[in-house]
């Protein structure tokens, strides 16, 4: 318990230190507002943008647009990459078909194939969703395959000696045994999708946090850029925390057996 309190203190102290350092360095007046805007001006731009909006959309609308893209793509990843990954781990033939495809596009930088997606799917939402989806798919798929391959053979043989069928083994043994890895994949995917979001909003978007930051940087509005980046950071941490909370609830035995 005592250790935990120390660590929480260290975390809070770090955040406070960074804030103070930020205030101090801008108070010297050595750097221009364009290089490092002061916390006050970032705070003011936050108030301004949340009240008057930025280029036709309120801050919540920008955030909402980004979140909508992220969440839709993420849910698509969850419902497709998890079952396909698990099946690939369970069945070597399915793996032989899917693995080369995933292994090929996985190391590609998202922007490299984004142009192709735009050519195929048009410049609006669907190509953005497709980009986020592909970015999130591979980490989840790979984690699921690894999760299944890592399962001790005795778990599966044991279930067979107790009379379970292949389908039952998949749902009652393989799926739960791979949950720890599934969640590792899901958390990685969330991070990757978030990074890709800005790239997706670079082309022909008119709203979204990523677009807001890029647009503001074109006009050297560093205060707005900083604000956008900080909001992205906080929402990123919150999203990751939500996935972690779900993991703790679902994989209650993690690290205990």
């Amino acid at each position, binding site marked *: 318990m005592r250790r935990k309190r120390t660590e929480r203190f260290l975390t809070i102290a770090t955040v406070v230190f960074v804030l103070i350092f930020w205030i101090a360095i801008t108070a010297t007046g050595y750097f221009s507002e364009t290089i490092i805007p002061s916390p006050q001006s970032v705070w003011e731009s936050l108030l301004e943008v949340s009240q008057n909006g930025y280029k036709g959309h309120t801050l919540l609308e920008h955030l909402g647009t980004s979140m909508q893209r992220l969440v839709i793509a993420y849910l698509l990843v969850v419902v497709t990459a998890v079952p396909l990954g698990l099946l690939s781990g369970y069945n070597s033939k399915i793996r032989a078909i899917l693995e080369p495809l995933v292994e090929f596009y996985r190391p590609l930088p998202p922007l490299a194939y984004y142009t192709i997606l735009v050519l195929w799917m048009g410049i609006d939402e669907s190509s953005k969703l497709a980009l986020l989806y592909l970015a999130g798919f591979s980490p989840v798929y790979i984690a699921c395959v690894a999760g299944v391959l890592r399962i001790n053979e005795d778990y599966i043989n*044991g279930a067979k000696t107790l009379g379970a069928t292949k389908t039952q083994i998949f749902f009652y043994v393989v799926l739960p045994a791979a949950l720890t890895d599934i969640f590792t994949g899901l958390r990685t995917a969330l991070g990757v999708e978030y990074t890709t979001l800005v790239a997706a909003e670079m082309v022909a978007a008119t709203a979204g946090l990523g677009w807001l930051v890029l647009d503001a940087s074109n006009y050297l509005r560093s205060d707005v850029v900083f604000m956008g980046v900080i909001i992205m950071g906080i929402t990123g941490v919150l999203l990751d925390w939500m996935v972690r909370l779900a993991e703790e609830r679902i994989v*209650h035995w993690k690290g205990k057996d």
Partner: protein
Amino acid sequence: MTGATMFSKIANLYKKLAKKDELITVENVNYRGEEPVVEGEELISIHGVNLSYSSKNGSIKALENISFNIYRGEFICVLGPSGCGKSTLLKILAGFIRPTAGTVKLSGTEITGIDWHRGVVFQHPPLYSWFSVRDNVAFGPWMRKIPKSIYRQQTDEFLRKVHLAEFADKKIYELSGGMKQRVSIARALINDPEILLMDEPFSALDALTREDMQNMTRDIWQDTGKTIFFITHDVEEALLLASRIIVLSHHPGRIIDDISVDFSLQMTEKNGGDIKFTPEFYKYREKLLRLVNS
């Protein structure tokens, strides 16, 4: 103890078992209407079994010309040095692997794969952390689609048998090593398998827990009359549990001895551990130790 008294003891076991059967008929919907148990009925016949692994340096022989029968109600301990292929033999009986040559038959039908008629207790119990103790024990009948009302009752009964009734709703990670192994035994027994295959189940436990587990296993054998096939490298464990001991030689595994012993029955009869210190026990122990280490 003479052979005659031992047989009468075994006959008594069968009577107990016959009484149990009535219960099973009512409770277990998958009951297949077995014939009444005949003394010394052949359950498993192993004939000319060989097993070789292929490796870089050609094929390696793990088992060579293994032939013996397992009779209903026997407690067989397979004894041998590590690497003699005794676990491999258990895996063949369980159906995890097929022998390279020879046949293994259960009640006349060849064993070609894994099914629930042969329950397995592993050295490291592969229990499912995502289920409670109760659900782990109920796993077999639950998967076999036996009505819940029936298997709930059976689960409680088998949890009591392994002295875990008050731990039913615990999580697996809350149990000690010995308790985990008891869950694993209950889980295998609830399916009422023809034979219980145990692969060095107590070798990872401390000495005190091991003795508890041995006593419990012996009691279960005598109460249920279940046939047990038990792998061990511990000579004393084999002598204290088995009704018959099969000794395998060091690599490749061949049967070098096959003896009947009655220390296990004496243990329950005299209800004590001083059997270990009798001259007869010593004699057997020395003989088996020499065989295993030869």
